[in-house]
């Protein structure tokens, strides 16, 4: 291979670009473009490295007691044992810490979270659509929706306790069993409203001129909803789902704090319990797990938004 052949195409030669007017062409992968596209990833990696090193140093030599502010390495050790097992617990703070303890609790939380989110989204979208499309449904439901959505959800917890109790389980057709149904109530009540309200707002704010245009070109009422209102609303729904996903996460931690358990109460419970027994590395490891999960989730939904509504691009300021 000659030197000529491996040359990185830094110079997008004139032969690659034509003067043909209006021609849309594929952008070349020049070094400058690679840097422009990936600089945020590079900066993030450097940023996090510095952060973790600083953490380690401050925990080791800083003014805090390691009992409450563990080192990064201890945290990672608990993280490793909690997720992948095979840990040597000898000489280690092993209150609550055990092989796979984070995974097991994580799975508990994931079940609570995913089922509640499916219910929230599955109910929230049609409720929002109906409220947006029908003045009657709007008039009937909106007092409840607005009151419940603005009320701090934890305030209705005692009522839920009185109504459904804190333990027990609901079984649906023997297919699925929900332990502690009150937890599902807490999560759904925290998560459902952003979906409802955003969907409703999307329907309500559909541009009149788009509706007029569809009418002029012959849209029936059904077509108007299918071809204009729904697509217009879709990005609002996605925003609602995004908000809802992070609200739901709050709901999960809240529900697990409130109802507690002896074992396997979920990640929220693990954070709470491990702190109560002064196993700070485990608390931090569980928290870190939650943070990573939340981050992946948010980034995932942002990618989803970009795919679903490319016309609503972020301004590149």
């Amino acid at each position, binding site marked *: 291979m000659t030197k000529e052949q491996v040359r990185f195409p830094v110079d997008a030669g004139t032969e690659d670009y034509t003067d043909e007017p*209006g*021609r*849309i062409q594929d952008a070349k992968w020049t070094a400058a473009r690679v840097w422009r596209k990936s600089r945020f990833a590079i900066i993030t990696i450097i940023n996090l490295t510095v952060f973790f090193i600083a953490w380690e140093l401050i925990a080791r030599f800083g003014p805090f007691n390691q009992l409450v502010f563990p080192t990064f390495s201890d945290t990672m050790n608990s993280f490793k044992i909690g997720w992948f097992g095979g840990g040597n617990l000898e000489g280690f703070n092993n209150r609550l810490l055990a092989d796979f303890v984070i995974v097991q609790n994580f799975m508990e939380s994931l079940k609570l979270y995913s089922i509640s989110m499916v219910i929230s989204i599955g109910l929230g979208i049609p409720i929002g659509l109906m409220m947006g499309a029908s003045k009657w449904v709007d008039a009937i439901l909106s007092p409840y929706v607005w009151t419940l959505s603005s009320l701090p959800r934890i305030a209705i917890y005692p009522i839920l306790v009185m109504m459904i109790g804190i333990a027990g389980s609901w079984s649906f057709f023997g297919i699925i069993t929900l332990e502690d149904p009150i937890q599902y109530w807490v999560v759904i009540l925290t998560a459902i409203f952003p979906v409802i309200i955003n969907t409703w707002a999307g329907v309500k704010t559909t*541009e009149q*001129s*788009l509706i*007029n*245009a*569809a*009418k*002029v*070109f*012959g*849209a*029936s009422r059904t*077509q108007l909803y299918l*071809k*204009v209102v729904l*697509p*217009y609303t*879709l990005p609002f729904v996605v925003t609602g789902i995004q908000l809802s996903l992070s609200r739901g996460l709050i709901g999960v931690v809240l529900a697990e704090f409130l109802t507690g358990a002896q074992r396997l109460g979920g990640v929220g419970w693990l954070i709470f319990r491990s702190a109560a027994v002064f196993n700070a590395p485990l608390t931090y490891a569980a928290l870190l797990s939650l943070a990573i999960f939340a981050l992946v989730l948010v980034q995932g939904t942002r990618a989803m938004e970009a795919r679903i*509504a*490319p*016309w*609503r*691009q972020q301004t590149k300021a």
Partner: protein
Amino acid sequence: MSSGDGKPPLIVAENLTCGYELERERKLLTALTGISLTVDEGEFLVLVGPSGCGKTTFINVVAGIIKPWEGTITFDGKPIVGTGSDRAMVFQDYAILPWRTVEQNVLLPFELRDLNVSKEEAKQRAHKIIDDVGLAGFENSFPHELSGGMKQRVGIARAMVTQPRVLLADEPFGALDAMTREVLQRQLETLVMESKQTVIFITHSIDEAIALGDRIAVISNRPGRIREIVSVDMDRPRLAEGELTGHPDYGKLREHLWDLVKDEALGAKVDAA
């Protein structure tokens, strides 16, 4: 080209009054009042008037989107009760669907109404018209990737693709640069000459009105009334080099229209005097 050739007019508006309900203020706003107007088949009627005088409102009544409060309006002898495939519209604010590509936007009329056009033919027609308005190569672009003028051309293509009997055009060239504007004006002129397209056309430009219209209706300040209807008796094509400004009637006509429109633009003061 006023009526008198025996055929009844295509559109007849009699004593129309219409307006809007202002929900917040619980008031009714009269946008247009006492509008009586006819449009012949094959005629090019231009509406000019100050901003907010009700031009868009009138065109929406013809389109069938707005119901008049009083008066009657008929199309081909039948009262207008809703929209129809015989009337297509180019919107002042484009009103193209942002989630559809240029091609999909232009195909919308075929999708919404059963016009007895096969899928292939619809596609063919769409491509032809996209080509005609100068958007070839952008069939698969999304509106957010287009300039304002290009979006407006999508709107024009969407309205023309079904070959409607009447084209309702609400300031279709308002957002275009001078050159594109002239190109499209000439295309429209050719279309009008060749196929006798009936057009109701709104503009703020007196030159454009003279260049394109058979008759020009000047509308007064809100509530809009017809101030005067001016006939333009000039041969087409008018847009060829020097034809328009060199025409002996041009200067007088322009001045007359200017006076009318200026009066209306300064409406409040005129009323007070």
